[in-house]
């Protein structure tokens, strides 16, 4: 359920989940199962996965900007070293990265 406070803070290391989710999904596959870092907290919004099927959008979800290392997403041969990709990801698609874990 949505909490009154966000689960994550700017700077937190988070993993994007990879999970079957029939219907409308706002988490692109290219960040699923990857590690990123919270760079902004956008606020709480009605859940598009519910609204897309005429639900009422509850529970509302916290939305974060998450930064990813582009080389980790797409391989080091594309783009410039140090490139990052930022994507807006909802809280229920994130979990805290375990200590010491690094992106595949």
């Amino acid at each position, binding site marked *: 359920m949505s909490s009154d406070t966000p689960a994550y803070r700017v700077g937190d290391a988070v993993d994007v989940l*990879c999970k*079957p989710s029939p*219907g409308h*999904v706002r988490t692109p*596959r290219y960040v699923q*199962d990857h590690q990123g870092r919270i760079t902004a907290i956008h606020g709480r919004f009605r859940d598009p996965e519910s609204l*897309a*099927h*005429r639900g009422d959008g509850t529970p509302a979800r916290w939305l974060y900007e998450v930064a990813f290392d582009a080389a980790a997403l797409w*391989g080091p041969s594309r783009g410039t070293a140090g490139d990052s990709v930022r994507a807006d990801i909802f809280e229920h698609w994130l979990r805290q990265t375990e200590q010491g874990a690094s992106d595949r």
Partner: protein
Amino acid sequence: MSLPLQVVTSVGEGSRMASGVHDMGGQPHGGPVNVPDHAMADWEVLTDAVNLALVASGAYAVDEMRRAQEEIEPGRYLAMTYYERWIGGIEQVLVERGILTPDEIDARTAELAERWG
């Protein structure tokens, strides 16, 4: 409600669930994306405006229209332009919501096609 095709692809060491053909970000497709400057055609501007007006009026949530686009059969989806997909999504949601019937849409389309030649 029909569920979308679940596409599983292997990317490197893992497999990730794409939610449909629309979920194509990051996929190789043979070179840099060509993003030419182009003015929107009148019908594209109108599509955008009609969608905004319908959402503002409470006819549907924009998320429904996006989801409806994602339900377009993958072969058709890839052959359609951006605003053609918008129109497809809008039509589907208007039918789902009982605002228009497919017959009404077809009849009006035929009428306009005859008028405009």
